[in-house]
């Protein structure tokens, strides 16, 4: 049981006086991030939907990165990974990240290939 808590977030930029205070601080941060996501999702600025990076819309990159940021703070502060031993933290975090990255890479490439087969395969799919 990790009774002692590390009270810094943002790499020490923000230091809280108590664990309770840190929890509320993280809630405010997560709420802001969600609000930004929803705001962007509703307005869909043309500058972000029109430009692409590595074949994906800039807006979608922003969504995915903000999601990972949220996931980080939920795991680190709500699930107390920040206070755990680094060996436990690494075993829990890197195992799924490695496997999921591998799976997503394979499946998305394969799906893109199937999409091209459907598109250029001289077979009508919409009849």
């Amino acid at each position, binding site marked *: 049981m990790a009774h002692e808590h590390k009270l810094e977030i943002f790499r020490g930029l923000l230091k809280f006086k108590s664990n309770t205070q840190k929890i509320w601080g993280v809630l405010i941060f997560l709420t802001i991030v969600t609000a930004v996501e929803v705001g962007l999702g509703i307005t869909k600025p043309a500058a972000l939907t029109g430009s692409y990076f590595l074949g994906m819309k800039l807006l979608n990159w922003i969504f*995915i990165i903000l999601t990972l940021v949220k996931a980080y703070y939920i795991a680190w502060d709500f699930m107390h990974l920040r206070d755990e031993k680094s060996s436990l933290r690494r075993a829990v975090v890197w195992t799924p990240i490695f496997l999921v990255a591998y799976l997503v890479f394979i499946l998305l490439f394969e799906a893109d290939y199937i999409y091209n087969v459907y598109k250029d395969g001289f077979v009508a799919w919409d009849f």
Partner: protein
Amino acid sequence: MDTTATTGTEENVWGGGNRPLNASYGKLMMWFFLVSDALTFSGFLASYGFSRFKFIETWPIADEVFTHVPFFHGNYPMYYVAFMTFILILSSVTMVLAVDAGHRMKKNAVIWYMFATIIGGAIFVGSQAWEWATFISGDYGALETKGGRILQFVKADSGDRAALADFAKTIPGERTAHERKNGIWYTEEGSLPSYSLREVTEGFKANPNILIRTETINEEGEKTLLNREESLKKLSAATQVVEGANLIHNEYGSRLFADFFFFITGFHGFHVFSGVVINVIIFFNVILGTYERRGHYEMVEKVGLYWHFVDLVWVFVFTFFYLV
């Protein structure tokens, strides 16, 4: 002979009671379970991505599907899902506060924070049930073609979506749903849509203000709108009327979209539901003083891990189902 001394230390290492990861057995097992559960959810989301990339040009746009807020009429994309997300994060916060109060052995604080967490979870599950009901009953209705593609209707002057009821004709003498009690007793059919295919096509021909929208997404990221001649031509390919969604047909577009919606949000909703049940059990244990007698509130911490995990998964479901 210093080998005896080495054996002695080895007995210490392997003799049990060691905590190399500085976490108790129960907590470690919870983490193992969460990792495997995370992989299950990742498998679902990755296969969602697979199907979506396969049909990237015709996938439904989430903004146009989830536009409802309870008790309000009109078009409010995302607001309700954002509210649900916020509720779940908030209940995560009360959970972590309960864990914190448990560390300081404050029984009453744990009780109240657990109670708030349960309420938050119940609101979330209820919202999800409402979201499902809205999704299943549908709002505009559409036609399905022989190739399984969905044709939706748009008003030409305003550009708004047109519901079937806005233009379909009422033609008397249509057939009624076949029930078990009539004719061959062991067969029955599902409920008929509120308008027949003929009523919709006749209504469409009579109303020049209605256009057809196909599933294909154009360069602007919007669904392709056909002009009147193309629409009439497309209309002849329609084979049935679709209202709402089930696992076989849905009015929103690609059939896989509804399948994945039911599957992924359903699996997540089931997790939230079981989380609420477990929380209730622990809540009563706290009230009965089980953990006070045990001397620590680690059980609350373990349940908390599960609850935060459910929140963590929702963050991803929210992004990949509703935002991207």
